């Protein structure tokens, strides 16, 4: 039972969170979008305060019994940890280093792609990561829909209004080309209506992999169950350290220490394996599908931006596949579905090394790897639902013209040879073309030398980024103007 001091600390936490969120909410901001998030978070804190107050009042002047208060206390503490975490994603969205100009363009293209009312804000992430978080979806998943809908301004639809928080690596704040990664993040929003079909692909691939590795899987489960029924703690510790992904799981070790018969241990081992496999595969499929969405929208430019963010290889993780596997997966998809693009030397030079990916050796991760590899065809069919701007007939001509503008330091938004192409498609085509220009070593170096950046290629790349930014903004303005003309206004 939380002693009076712990309860006092909880009350203090509730109070300080409210004060801090209010303080930031009342600051002057360059844009009003975070206000929705602050209001909704305040409502969550207030509801938790109300719960604790009501429980204490029901039993006053006595204390509530420990078996009642403890779980409620623990749950509210964790809710407040969630509030503090999500607050940290929006409390510093007004740094002077943030490229605000990209926001409107990203909001605009997100609206067109997702058919939602997206308002974007940017924060600089101290870690090397790129994120776009839809706060409406986060709040829904956390069970905070009521608080969200009350925070939405009057006249807006709480079911389609969201705040997209774009998290951008602080060290790369000026790199506009990195926003090719937005295609992956928006891909996560595409998944929802397609998830049932994706699950079917997952089940089919999982069954095939089980059949392929039937004997090895049996041995693996038997070995693991033999270890979890071991009585000697040191033998248990040493053996558990061999098993991914459980070696860091203190909970699993704790569970494993309970004495079990071999039969019980085997069943427990199977259950635990299935639990972890399902979690990991679900997470990996979401990432890989979003990678394919990015490939549909910006082609191999996604991999270039990915390489900038994720330098080198990474280990498999519960939430994300290893980087090498993702690169190969996307490359294989592009070679199948966009073979003409992949014949271009610029993209070949970028992507050919990805073929050398070596799958993990650990049995569990190998199974996960194989399930994903077997799923490429199925996922490729599903991702066809995402229209690809790279399928236009005169792509080569469009890219060539775009790059001619860039070479002459002119914003490429004026290029017309791809008309009529939907404005949102031009957004992605410009990113694709810009990266192609950047990766064309001969052309990029000539460009840098021409404008005095031979010794400072980073400045040359920044110049490309600025031209891209200007063009994306221009596209958005033209779109809104043409909509007004269509509606009969000026």
């Amino acid at each position, binding site marked *: 039972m939380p002693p009076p001091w712990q309860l006092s600390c909880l009350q203090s936490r509730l109070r300080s969170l409210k004060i801090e969120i209010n303080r930031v909410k009342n600051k002057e901001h360059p844009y009003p979008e975070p206000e929705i998030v602050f209001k909704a978070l305040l409502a969550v804190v207030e509801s938790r305060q109300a*719960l604790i107050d*009501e*429980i204490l009042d*029901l039993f006053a002047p006595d204390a509530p019994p420990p*078996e*009642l208060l*403890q*779980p*409620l206390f*623990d*749950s*509210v*503490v*964790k*809710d407040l*940890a*969630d509030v503090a*975490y999500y607050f940290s994603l929006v409390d510093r969205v007004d740094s002077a280093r943030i490229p605000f100009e990209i926001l409107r363009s990203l909001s605009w293209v997100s609206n067109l792609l997702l058919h939602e009312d997206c308002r974007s804000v940017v924060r600089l992430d101290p*870690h*090397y*990561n*790129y*994120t776009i978080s839809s706060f409406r979806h986060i709040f829904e*998943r*956390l*069970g905070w829909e*009521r608080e969200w809908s009350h925070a939405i301004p009057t006249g807006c639809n709480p079911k389609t209004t969201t705040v997209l928080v774009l*998290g951008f690596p602080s060290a790369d704040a000026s790199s506009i080309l990195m926003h090719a*990664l937005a295609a*992956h*993040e928006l891909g*996560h929003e595409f998944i929802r209506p397609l998830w*049932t079909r994706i*699950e*079917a692909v997952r*089940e089919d691939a999982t*069954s095939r992999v*089980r059949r392929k590795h039937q004997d090895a899987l049996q041995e693996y489960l038997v070995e693991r169950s033999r270890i979890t029924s071991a009585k000697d703690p040191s033998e248990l510790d040493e053996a558990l350290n061999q098993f991914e992904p459980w070696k860091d799981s203190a*909970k*699993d070790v704790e*569970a494993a220490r309970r004495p079990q018969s071999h039969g019980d241990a085997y*069943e427990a081992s*199977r*259950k*635990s394996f*299935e*639990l972890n496999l*399902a*979690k990991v595969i679900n997470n990996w499929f*979401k*990432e890989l599908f*979003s990678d394919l969405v990015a490939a549909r929208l910006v082609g191999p430019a996604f991999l270039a931006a*990915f390489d900038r*963010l*994720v330098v080198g290889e*990474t280990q498999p*993780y*519960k*939430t*994300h596949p290893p980087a090498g596997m993702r690169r190969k997966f996307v490359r294989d998809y592009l070679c199948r579905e966009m073979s003409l693009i992949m014949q271009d030397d610029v993209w070949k030079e970028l992507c050919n090394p990805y073929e050398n990916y070596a799958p993990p050796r650990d049995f569990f991760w190998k199974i996960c790897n194989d399930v994903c590899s077997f799923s490429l065809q199925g996922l490729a069919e599903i991702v066809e639902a995402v229209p690809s701007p790279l399928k236009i007939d005169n792509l080569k001509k469009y890219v060539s013209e775009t790059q001619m503008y860039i070479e002459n330091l002119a914003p490429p938004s004026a290029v017309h040879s791809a008309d009529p192409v939907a404005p949102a498609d031009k957004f992605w085509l410009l990113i694709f073309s810009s990266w192609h220009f950047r990766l064309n070593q001969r052309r990029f170096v000539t460009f840098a030398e021409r404008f005095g950046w031979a010794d400072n290629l980073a400045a040359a790349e920044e110049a490309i980024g600025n031209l891209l930014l200007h063009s994306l903004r221009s596209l958005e303005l033209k779109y809104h103007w043409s909509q007004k003309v269509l509606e009969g206004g000026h």
Partner: protein
Amino acid sequence: MPIMPLKRPFDRYASLAWTTSLAILALEKLRRGKRLGDLREEEREALQKLTAEFELLSESTKITVDQISGEEMGTVTPQLLEGFFTLAEIEETSANPITASQLRQAGSDLEAIQHEEARVPDSSVVDRARDACLKLLTGLDRLRPEVVTP
């Protein structure tokens, strides 16, 4: 999800934990003589949601590992599969996890309580339902991300 893993996992049990907390508050009010109609709307909604959740979890206790690891995988609905894995995780992390019979009983107790709109519900039924909710909430709390410490 971000391009790279986050240090903090998503709190996937937050929603169910809050529904359970509200249900516990509602049941405590009913124990003290309030009627269903006296409860706030979100408390009544929590009781309804939790009734359905207990029924789902109770059904998912019938699923076997063979079903989810073999050719019969397609016969298990995603909701039942999620229920199965929730209970599996609770089992792995709790010394005294909620049992299949407790889940079944809790579902029917909450159902019975919600039918007693005009009267004060039977106190032994309310007590039993409340205890089941507390046990579920304790199990869920152990599955949620740890509060970050220095």
